[in-house]
């Protein structure tokens, strides 16, 4: 089966090329500025374009490319732009979408996908005849492949939406999706100042600090790209240390892939303990210094 893949995130685009190569030829649709960074991941062919990556213009170019290349599947990275693009494309060509998949496989000629459902409480495994897929970050490890795929250029149609201003977000050098140890804080941390108190522990473990949705979005004690959860980053570190996180299902869906989970919470009935390998019940401000001391011993 032949797949057209696209994501405005280079990381996800590389993952899509790796994953969908399992099913056959992969055409990568990519902004011309990113061709050089992505061609090393070995797509069968490349279609490049120039211009702002707005969802409606992208849906148009994906339709043209898929018609020309007779692609049977279109895989789009699940980002703000990717979801809107997929929806517009589906409405435009009258095709179904299987959204937010975390896994896809060919099971005896049937395409079987997995995705979270009911806010992350369950995992749906479905057989689908959808043509379009939106794909959660982390579906595969990108791998470099030798070769020089042919590159074709297509024009990008005008968008019905104009971008007036781009407002950069505070970029951080730490990428929690790539960290092997994450110290994650929840509402139980109490204040922004509390984060500084747990930083020495994160440093001792050579880890990065992340947080739950309230900490990152509601109180903004941490920046948005540090949010672990269904609506944030989905992480799979070796160690996930959850401090003052109650363990709402929204959060669990983002850290379920962690290898070892340690939870500290003062409420012994907190749901996080159901998802932990080790749990310590008590005040995190008393436990963290003791953990640090014992780690250094």
């Amino acid at each position: 089966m032949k797949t057209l893949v696209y994501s405005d995130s280079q990381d996800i685009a590389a993952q899509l090329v790796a994953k969908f190569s399992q099913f056959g030829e992969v055409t990568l649709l990519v902004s011309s500025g990113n061709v050089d960074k992505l061609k090393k991941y070995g797509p069968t062919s490349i279609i490049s374009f120039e211009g702002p990556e707005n969802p409606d213009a992208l849906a148009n170019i994906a339709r043209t490319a898929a018609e020309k290349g007779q692609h049977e599947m279109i895989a789009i990275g699940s980002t703000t732009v990717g979801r809107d693009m997929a929806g517009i494309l589906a409405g435009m060509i009258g095709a179904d979408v299987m959204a937010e998949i975390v896994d896809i496989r060919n099971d005896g000629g049937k395409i079987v996908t997995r995705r979270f459902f009911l806010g992350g409480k369950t995992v749906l495994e479905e057989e689908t005849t959808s043509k379009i897929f939106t794909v959660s970050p982390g579906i595969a490890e990108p791998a470099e492949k030798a070769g020089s795929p042919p590159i074709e250029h297509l024009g990008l149609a005008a968008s019905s939406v104009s971008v007036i201003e781009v407002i950069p977000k505070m970029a951080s050098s730490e990428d929690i999706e790539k960290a092997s140890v994450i110290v994650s804080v929840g509402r139980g941390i109490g204040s922004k100042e509390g984060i500084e108190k747990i930083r020495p522990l994160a440093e001792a473990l050579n880890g990065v600090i992340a947080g739950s949705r309230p900490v990152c979005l509601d109180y903004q004690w941490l920046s948005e790209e540090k949010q672990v959860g269904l609506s944030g980053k989905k992480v799979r570190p070796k160690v996930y240390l959850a401090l003052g996180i109650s363990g709402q299902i929204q959060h669990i869906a983002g850290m379920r892939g962690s290898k070892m989970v340690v939870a500290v919470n003062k409420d012994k009935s907190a749901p996080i303990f159901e998802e932990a390998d080790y749990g310590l019940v008590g005040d995190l401000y008393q436990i963290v210094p003791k953990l640090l001391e014992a780690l250094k011993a």
Partner: protein
Amino acid sequence: MPYQIVVLIKQMPDLELIKPDPSTGEPNVKSVPLRFETLSKHATEAAVRLKEKYGGKVTGICLGTETAGQVMKEAFAMGVDEGIVITGYQGSNPRYTARILAEKIKSIPHDVVVLGNQSADSYTGMIPGMISSMLGVPLLGNALSIELSDGSAQVLRVMEDRNEKIQSKLPAVISVTQEINEPRLPPVMQILAAGRKPIKTEKAEPGKSYTAIRSNKAPKSERKKQIFEDPVKGIPEVVKALKEAIR
């Protein structure tokens, strides 16, 4: 200029009450009451605030079950002026949902269509784009703020690595993030008045399914669950495991 504002409202099972069956892992969805879906509550608040700021009328459309009237009454209490409930489609193919909604929207005046970006339960994020292309109007997606001015809308679009101020002509579809506002808790008088307001109920044709569900289960937790109520006892054990894991 008064605006014709349409807000799309969804029902969802109360996720707090959903428990997987301990032996099968299957969720007890059918026995859980339906409530106002989180993101569409934020969309309703955004729609009512647009009306309060610029003038106009808000029409709520809910594709739901026979109990959707209850959710619509809540929307009335928040400031929605008219309500349409469409029943008959219980499937979960976003393209059918979008088509039924788009057909209804086409039949009524609309300058702005407001909805949530990704519902809290099924979480596909497909409805905004689908409705925008089915109506043939621009989509201003993932809005953190909305402004309207003569025939156009401006929103702050939240993206992964940056935000963008984007603009389009009206009519437009605007999807909102959960952080756009804090939905109001309507006063008692408004709730009482809302109960007497008429709701139009219509029936949609059920569409056929595009997928076969193989399973819908809570993932099995294979964690060790060694929980120490006395941290002093637990710390040495935890530190040993931590040292092992990061070696």
